[in-house]
C-alpha cells in the first residue's frame, strides 16, 4: 500500500544525513563535553559546530543559542526565565491560539500572581493588534506570540509585533517551532529577544530543541544544577541529538527556497484539487500569510476522526481539530478562537507537507479524499437535501 505522510506539523521524518552524523556519537564519541580529558575534548568541538549551524539558520550569533530538550522546554524557559528575571508581579501577554506549551505556562503564571492578557484573533486567524496595543499600555510586559500557527499555518506580523513590544519597553519571545526551516528568519534584523525552535519539526529527532536568547536579555535559568550552556541550562548536553539538530539546520538552510516554492506549489495543488472535487468545503486561516506547507480545510457535515481513520486505511496520514481526535471533548481552541462555525470545526483536517512530499503522493491523496468524504456524508443526518 502507498503511504503518504501529510502530518509534518506534528512531527517529521529524520533526514538520513542527520542519522548518519549522529551515529558516531553513540559508538566512539560518547564522552562528556565537560570532561577535562581526551574523551570530552573530542566532542566539545562538534557541540560548538552544531551551535553555529543552528545559529546560521536563524541569523543569530552562536553564543545566543541554548540547547534544550524540546520546543516545549524552550517555551517554558523563555517565558518563566524572563518573568523571573524581571522580579515581582509582571504583565504577561500572549495570544489565544498559542501552542499549549505557551498557553498553559501563561495560565500557570496567572495563578501565581502575574497578570496575563490573551489576545484574540480575527476570522482569518490574524492577531488583534489593537488589542495587543491596549494590553501593552498596561505596563511593562513579557510578550509571547507565535511566529506561525501549528494548526492553520497562519503567520503573524512578527516584525510589527516586536516593534510594538519594544516601543512599550517589553521583552518579546516568539514560539517559532513551526516557522524555523519553513520561512527565512534573520533574528539580527528583527525585534526579537527570544525564539524557540524544535528539532523534530525540521527532520531532526524528537528530544532536542533550542532557545535563542539575544545578547543582553535579562534571563533567569529555568533548569538549575550545572554550568552547562554557559550557566543558562543545566544538564549534561545531549550530544548526539545536538549534532543531529545542527545537521538538520544546515540542511534546512539548503532547502529553504525549495520549501517556499516547490512545497508551496504542491500544497496549492492539494488545496485547489480538494476545493474543486468536494463541495461544502472551506479553507481555514489567512491564505495570504501562511506557511508554505500547511493546509487546514473543513469538510462540512462530517467529523474529523472518521475522515482520518478512513484516510489511514488508505495509507494517508493527516490530523484534525475535531473534538474526538483531541483527546478531550472540546474541538480545536485555535479554530474556535477564529470563530469557525461548529459545522466546520468538527470536520477540519490539517494536511502538512514537507520537502519529502512528492507530486504522486498529492495526486494519490486527491484521488482518495472525495470518496472518503462522500462515504461519511452519505450517512450524516446534517447534509441538506438537494433538489
Amino acid at each position, binding site marked *: 500500500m502507498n503511504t503518504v505522510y501529510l502530518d509534518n506539523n506534528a512531527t517529521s521524518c529524520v533526514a538520513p544525513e542527520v542519522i548518519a552524523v549522529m551515529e558516531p556519537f553513540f559508538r566512539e564519541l560518547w564522552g562528556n563535553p565537560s570532561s577535562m580529558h581526551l574523551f570530552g575534548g573530542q566532542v566539545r568541538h562538534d557541540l560548538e559546530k552544531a551551535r553555529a549551524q543552528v545559529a546560521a539558520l536563524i541569523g543569530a550569533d552562536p553564543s545566543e543559542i541554548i540547547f534544550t530538550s524540546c520546543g516545549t522546554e524552550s517555551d517554558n524557559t523563555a517565558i518563566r526565565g524572563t518573568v523571573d528575571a524581571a522580579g515581582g508581579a509582571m504583565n504577561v501577554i500572549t495570544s489565544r491560539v498559542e501552542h499549549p506549551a505557551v498557553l498553559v505556562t501563561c495560565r500557570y503564571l496567572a495563578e501565581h500572581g502575574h497578570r496575563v492578557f490573551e489576545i484574540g484573533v480575527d476570522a482569518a486567524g490574524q492577531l488583534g493588534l489593537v488589542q495587543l496595543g491596549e494590553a501593552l499600555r498596561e505596563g511593562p510586559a513579557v510578550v509571547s506570540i507565535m511566529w506561525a500557527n501549528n494548526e492553520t499555518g497562519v503567520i503573524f506580523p512578527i516584525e510589527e509585533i516586536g516593534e510594538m513590544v519594544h516601543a512599550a519597553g517589553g521583552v518579546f519571545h516568539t514560539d517559532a517551532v513551526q516557522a524555523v526551516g519553513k520561512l527565512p528568519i534573520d533574528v539580527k534584523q528583527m525585534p526579537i529577544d527570544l525564539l524557540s525552535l524544535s528539532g523534530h519539526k525540521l527532520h531532526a529527532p524528537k528530544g532536542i530543541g533550542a532557545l535563542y536568547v539575544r545578547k543582553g536579555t535579562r534571563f533567569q535559568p529555568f533548569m538549575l544544577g550545572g554550568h552547562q550552556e554557559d550557566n543558562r541550562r543545566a544538564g549534561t548536553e545531549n550530544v548526539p541529538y545536538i549534532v543531529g539538530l545542527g545537521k538538520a539546520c544546515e540542511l534546512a538552510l539548503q532547502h529553504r527556497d525549495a520549501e517556499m516554492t516547490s512545497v508551496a506549489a504542491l500544497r496549492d495543488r492539494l488545496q485547489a484539487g480538494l476545493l474543486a472535487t468536494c463541495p461544502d468545503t472551506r479553507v481555514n486561516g489567512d491564505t495570504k500569510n501562511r506557511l508554505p506547507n500547511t493546509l487546514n480545510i473543513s469538510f462540512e*457535515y*462530517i*467529523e*474529523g*476522526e*472518521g475522515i482520518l*481513520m*478512513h484516510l489511514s*486505511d488508505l495509507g494517508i496520514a493527516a490530523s484534525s481539530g*475535531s*473534538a*474526538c*481526535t483531541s*483527546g*478531550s*471533548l*472540546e*474541538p480545536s481552541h485555535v479554530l474556535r478562537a477564529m470563530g469557525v462555525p*461548529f*459545522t466546520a470545526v*468538527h470536520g477540519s483536517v490539517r494536511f502538512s507537507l514537507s520537502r519529502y512530499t512528492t507530486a504522486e503522493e498529492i495526486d494519490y491523496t486527491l484521488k482518495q479524499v472525495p470518496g472518503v468524504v462522500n462515504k461519511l456524508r*452519505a*450517512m*450524516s*443526518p*446534517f447534509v441538506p437535501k438537494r433538489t
Partner: protein
Amino acid sequence: MWEYTGKVLDHFRNPRNVGIIEDADGVGEVGSLACGDALKLYFKLDKDGRIANVKFQTFGCASAIASSSALTEIVKGMPLDKAGQVTNQDIADYLGGLPEQKMHCSVMGREALEAAIENYRSGREGRKRILAGKVVCNCFGVTEEEIERVTRENRLTSVEQVTNYTKAGGGCGKCKGEIAAIVERVARARQESERKAGAAAPRKLTTIEKIRLIEQTLDKQIRPMLKNDGGDIELIDVEGNSVKVALRGMCAGCIGASSTIKEVVETKLREFVAPELTVVEAES
C-alpha cells in the same frame, strides 16, 4: 490513536443499516453538530410489534458510527418492549468494548432508541427531552436525570467517568462539583439498597471465610496502594468484627498511619468484606 476492537473497526468501516425509512413508525434524534456527534434512528414495526426494519444516520467519530451500527443489529427483530430495555452497556459489549473516553457513544445509541420508542408511543417529536429536569452541564446540555441514570446503570464512581459516559463536565468544567454530588448521592443510594438486600438474605461469613476475604482484599485493594509509597501491611488477628493490622516499611511510624488505617484500610474492608468491621492498629 484510540485502541478500538476489531468489531468497532468493522462496524465503522462497514456500517450496517445506514439510511432513512420514509414511512417509519418511530424516529429518534439525539446530539447536535455543536456537540460533535449526533444520531438519527428510524424503525418500522411488523404486524406482531417486532422491529422489522431499522436504519440510522450518524454524524460523529468512528465509535459513534460503530455504536449506531451495533445498536441497529441488536434491536433488529426484537419486540419493541424488549428493545426498550437495551442498555448502553449492551451496545459496548456487542462491540467487544469501547475505550472508556468513548462510552458516551454507546449512551447516545441508547438515548436515540428511547427517543424513537417515545416518538412511536406518544406521537411526540422524538428528540431527547433536554427540558426534562434541571440542566447540569450547559456546555453539552446534559440534565441531572440523565447523569443520575447513567451513573446508576453503569455503576460510575468518579466525575471523570461521568464525563466519559455523558460528556457532562467536559466543556468549561464548572459543573464538576455538582456532578460529584450526584455521583455521591447515587453511590449512597446503592449502598443503602444493597444493605437492605443483604439484610433480607443474611449470610454470615465464617471466621475462616472472613479471614480469607480480608487477606484477599488487603492483597488486591490495599497493598498496591501502600507499595506505591514504599509501605506494606500485615494482618495480625481477627476477633469477631475487630481486625488487627500492622503497617510495615515506610508506613510504620508514619504520622499519617492512623488516618491510613481508618480511611483506606477500614473503608476498603467494609466495602469488600463486611460493613460492620472495625480496624485497629496492632501495638508494636
